[in-house]
């Protein structure tokens, strides 16, 4: 396919095609389907961090009005939980997933131990509270003790999360450095807290199962549940037309999906499992608490001689979730000597999982904060230090970048922000009683692509349907893919209907890692090209509609599969960005306010500037939350998150939104994919937290080496 030409639709700020459904309340989410005879479930969670269930008294609950069944390990069907040939990329590479109601073991506080199914939600909830459980507790492990850290298993290492990686000789590089920093950072456990709680409705029809589920990957749910129940994948259908935000929390197939299917099987009714906000904190994953040590060495001219970065992250005992935390240490800068060490600290907790910018955003926080400390130690401008160490190629793989406009990002963002006005010395800028701080950081997130299939059907009435099993958890897949199809078919956006979120549609990869647009978009573009070819082979002329009618056809369909090719072996691909932040600090009260943020991004070709800008602003605000508010407060006595709600787990509100300036630097990556795009969901949260932390140092002269940074950290001098 040729390089993209100017388009009437692509690159245009088309409004969301799903907008009207969302603003009128007609968009239907997983919990809102109402199959005939729907029953409701209430999940009962364990209240101890480790042990066994000694006794379970369900008699009172069973006798309560409306109750259809109480299911626990005592009466649940024994399920095969077959091992998959290859674990999906969204699952941990080693360990055992949590099995529902298969034995009496309790592996963490909050683990589902029973479920009540009743005619109404109120009846199910009321009965769930009447279940009496006695436990035999065993000594739990509920503290984060990095001394217990162990390297990841071989399977995890093979999956790109090794215990040790790097190039050159880290120690030697550090020894030869004229200037070094050696600093340790902590990042709190964070929860996705999408506004839609996770929910699943399961409905059996004989041996066929339909699941309405909140999912970022409907076809993986099919395969997963087929293995859990030992049934044919062809018997399962998963439907998920709208996802109310997920940020990674709906990548995997969580245990409550299995619970819904068990409950439906045992009652012979369709059953809804909707997790409460409180349950979400222990029922789906989270961004793990991570401790990092960064050592940097630099020559007198500022060139990096060594990057040594170690990370220790919390992990569950039963399953090994690991992150690509230390990848930025290898790819962000040019440096001959890099050494990373990754450790996992087992705790009695539910398993963590990817959260927006997984791993990268964590590693980048420490790396970019340390770079700021190095700039101070060298007495050079933080931007100049980064330019000095610009990575012209990906030094981890030795491959050239398929495209890279990071220098333009620094330049554009610095210019728009007014970085030149910064007085370098900390505590040197004030307005009234407020200290003013400027900080910046680099953003990087690898750009990937996966195979995808799509089907396009043209109709004689001049409309078209595009179909693929992708998801749209909010970023605008419905819209951007519609634009791509409209462009390829020469039809107006309104004439195209895009169907997604159904496992019976053509194959689509996971909706995560910012790969959907380039992967699915490429397949759609090819399917459109294929149907156009078929159209051209028809006799007659005129519009699509006219030609179909002239040939006596009511429709014309074509499918295509698009896969990444050899280019991935010859090039490294990544989105880039630069984030600049101004903060104001009142030390008398420890109050901190982000005044403005400027981001310039290299995300390849922008398919829809309206959607892209909105994505970036949302990501930047996610980063603000990460830097200043979001943290699970962990109580080691119970192995439990204490602020498991939205009153005490703080996320930014409208008033916290500062002036936000987003620019996309000119860029096009036709190596990665014919559309020239690189994907942009994850990149937007990257670099924000360190930029804020660096600005706080600039304002106050005191380093805060942990996020979130709280008023108590800033009060007084």
């Amino acid at each position, binding site marked *: 396919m040729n390089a993209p030409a100017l388009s009437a639709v692509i690159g245009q700020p088309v409004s*969301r095609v*799903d*907008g*009207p459904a969302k*603003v*009128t*309340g*007609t968009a*239907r*989410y997983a919990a*809102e389907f109402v199959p005939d005879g729907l029953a409701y479930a209430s999940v009962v969670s364990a209240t101890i961090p480790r042990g066994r269930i000694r006794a379970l008294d369900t008699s009172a609950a069973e006798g309560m009005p409306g109750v259809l069944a109480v299911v626990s390990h005592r009466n649940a069907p024994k399920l095969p939980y077959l091992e998959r040939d290859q674990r999906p990329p969204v699952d941990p590479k080693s360990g055992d997933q949590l099995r529902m109601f298969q034995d009496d073991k309790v592996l963490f506080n909050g683990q589902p131990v029973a479920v009540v199914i009743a005619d109404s*939600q*109120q009846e199910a909830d009321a009965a769930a509270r009447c279940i009496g459980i006695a436990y035999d507790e065993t000594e739990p492990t509920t503290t984060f003790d990095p001394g217990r850290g162990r390297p990841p298993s071989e399977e995890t290492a093979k999956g790109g999360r090794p215990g040790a990686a790097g190039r050159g000789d880290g120690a030697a590089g550090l020894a030869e450095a004229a200037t070094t920093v050696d600093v340790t950072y902590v990042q709190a456990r964070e929860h996705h807290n*999408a*506004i*839609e709680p996770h929910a699943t409705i399961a409905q059996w029809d004989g041996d066929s199962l339909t699941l309405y589920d909140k999912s970022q990957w409907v076809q993986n749910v099919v395969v997963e549940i087929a293995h859990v129940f030992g049934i044919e994948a062809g018997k399962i259908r998963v439907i998920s037309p*709208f*996802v*109310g935000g997920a*940020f990674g929390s709906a990548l995997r197939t969580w245990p409550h999906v299995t619970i819904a299917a068990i409950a439906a099987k045992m009652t012979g009714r369709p059953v809804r499992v909707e997790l409460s*906000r*409180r349950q979400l904190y222990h029922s789906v994953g989270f961004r793990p608490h991570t401790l990092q040590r960064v050592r940097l060495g630099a020559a007198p001219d500022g060139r990096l001689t060594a990057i040594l970065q170690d990370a220790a992250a919390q992990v569950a005992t039963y399953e090994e979730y690991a992150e690509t935390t230390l990848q930025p240490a290898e790819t962000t800068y040019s440096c001959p000597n890099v050494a990373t060490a990754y450790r996992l600290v087992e705790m009695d907790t539910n398993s963590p999982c990817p959260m927006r910018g997984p791993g990268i955003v964590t590693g980048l926080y420490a790396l970019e904060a340390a770079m700021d400390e190095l700039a101070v130690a060298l007495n050079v401008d933080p931007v100049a230090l980064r330019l000095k160490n610009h990575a012209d190629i990906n030094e981890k793989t030795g491959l050239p970048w398929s495209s890279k406009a990071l220098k333009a990002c620094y330049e554009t963002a610095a210019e728009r922000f007014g970085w030149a006005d910064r*007085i370098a010395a900390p*505590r*040197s800028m*004030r*307005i*009234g*009683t407020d200290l*003013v701080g400027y900080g910046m950081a680099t953003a990087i997130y690898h750009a990937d692509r996966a195979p995808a299939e799509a089907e396009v059907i043209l109709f004689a009435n001049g409309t078209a349907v595009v179909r693929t099993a992708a998801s749209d958890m*909010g970023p605008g897949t419905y819209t951007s893919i519609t634009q791509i199809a409209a462009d390829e078919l020469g039809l107006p956006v309104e004439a195209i209907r895009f169907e997604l979120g159904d496992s019976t549609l053509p194959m689509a990869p996971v909706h995560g890692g910012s790969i959907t647009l380039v992967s699915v978009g490429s397949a759609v573009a090819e399917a459109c090209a294929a149907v156009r070819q078929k159209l051209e082979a028809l006799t007659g002329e005129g519009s699509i509609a006219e030609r179909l009618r002239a040939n006596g056809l009511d429709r014309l369909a074509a499918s295509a599969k698009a896969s990444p090719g050899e280019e991935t072996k010859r090039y490294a691909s990544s989105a880039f960005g630069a984030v600049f932040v101004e903060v104001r600090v*009142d030390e*008398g*009260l*420890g*109050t901190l*306010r982000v*005044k403005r943020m400027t981001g310039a991004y290299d995300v390849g070709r922008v398919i829809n500037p309206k*959607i892209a800008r*909105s994505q970036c*602003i*949302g990501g*930047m*605000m996610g980063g603000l939350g990460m830097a200043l*508010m979001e943290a699970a407060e962990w109580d080691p006595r119970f192995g439990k998150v*204490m602020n498991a*709600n*939205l*009153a*005490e787990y703080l996320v*930014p*509100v*409208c*008033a*916290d*939104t500062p002036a*936000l300036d987003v620019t996309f630097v000119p860029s096009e990556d036709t190596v990665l994919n014919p559309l020239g795009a690189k994907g942009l969901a994850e990149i937007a949260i990257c670099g924000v937290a360190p930029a804020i932390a660096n600005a706080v140092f600039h304002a106050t002269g005191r380093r805060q080496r942990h996020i979130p940074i709280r*008023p*108590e950290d800033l*009060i007084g001098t």
Partner: protein
Amino acid sequence: MRDSVRFIRQGRVVELKSFGPTETLLDHLRLTERACGTKEGCNEGDCGACTVAVGTHEDGKVVYRPVNACILFVGQLDGKEIVTVEDIAGSGGLHPVQQAMVDHHGSQCGFCTPGIVMSLFALYQDAGRATPPPRAVIDEWLSGNLCRCTGYRPIVEAARTALSAPPDDMFTRSAEATGGVLQFLADAEDVFVGTDQRFFAAPRSVEALAALYERHPDATLVAGATDVGLWITKQFRPVEKVIHLGRVDGLDRIEDVGPAVIIGATATYEAATDALAGIDPDIGAVVRRIGSRQVRASGTIGGNIANGSPIGDTPPMLIALGATLELVSAKANRAVPLEDFFIAYGRQDRQPGEFVAGVLVPKLKAGQVFRAYKISKRFDQDISAVMGAFLFTLADGVITEARIAFGGLAGTPKRAAAVEARLIGVAPGSAAAWSPAMEAFAEDFQPLTDMRASAHYRLETARALLGKALLETAGAPTTRTRVIGQREARQEGAHVGA
């Protein structure tokens, strides 16, 4: 006596005769009506996904307010109109608020969207608003609507567009008819639905309330339900008997009686804001930050006092001002100084069958200076870590009386007696003279460390607040020390080097 509740829904009067006393409006909508446009994100009043607009008839007009349907009991809607996101698009297409949300990309995943649309819809209906309102007003109206996707910016832009013209939609056009129906629904009957063991009641007069509460001293009084709602949805407490105070005539009065203002127990935060701000603008500034717009539309001053919470925001201010609580029962009426009402954590001076009727708040006298500061991690919709209120009486440049009360430092809202004593005779501007008072904090308070703040932070902040209050009293420009108006103080001055 009426054995049903009635409200307007989609232009029709709906009458409910059987419903649970604590059945929430959200469950009614989503599970009973199966109208799923209104979302459930938290069920605790924190996220705003469940926001609907409630219409009432006031001073000849229909007024719409955003409320959290998840913590409001369906019985509380008696005599009101319920408007949800499904109801506002006319035959001519989307409502201006909805259209602007589409045009500005104010929706990503869309799950917060219905709540945001309804908050903006309620603001849209406000005839007195600017066209468009300034950012601070939009922030305030959206303070109870969390969005994890958009970063809010596109929503603010949508709000500006939608609110750039005065209200003109099918609701403004049918306001007169709606008002007529609402007036008809506001009958003089006492409402009682259920049995003596399990009921939802809404008496119409103070006498009927007193009599009913005497008969059922174990009933739960409900004003705005912004606390009681959480007992149900979060603590799963069994509440079988509900006496709703919202229909009691006169209990929501706000009256200026010369040297003082009387705030009736069921006056909402929103209704009381202006009267309280009239005593001192700081009170208004704090009240405007309590919870969210939704919480302020439902939550009451009486509830904020009666719940006895150590972190309620109004009690410290009212105590510093020397407010008196009016308590009423079938047997007697009495008045107690508000500070004496709070006995210990979880214990108040309230007898069985007794309820709060109102609070009498003295105005400032000549020579008095008042300051109040709410300190929380997040500016909006966040429980205070420390809430401090200060009333200084001055003569000849020195303090002759100090009344200082804090929330968040003890098991109740509490006066700082030792600190107050050390301030007598002190000139507020002379920082050197403050130190005995600063040291006395440790005598008055031994705060706890919890997840909201550490003990150290609480004490340091309390001291810093006293310092600010004294400096301001001495005449330091408030813009320099303002805590509450932080965001308003977005001075755009040039950056100065040290």
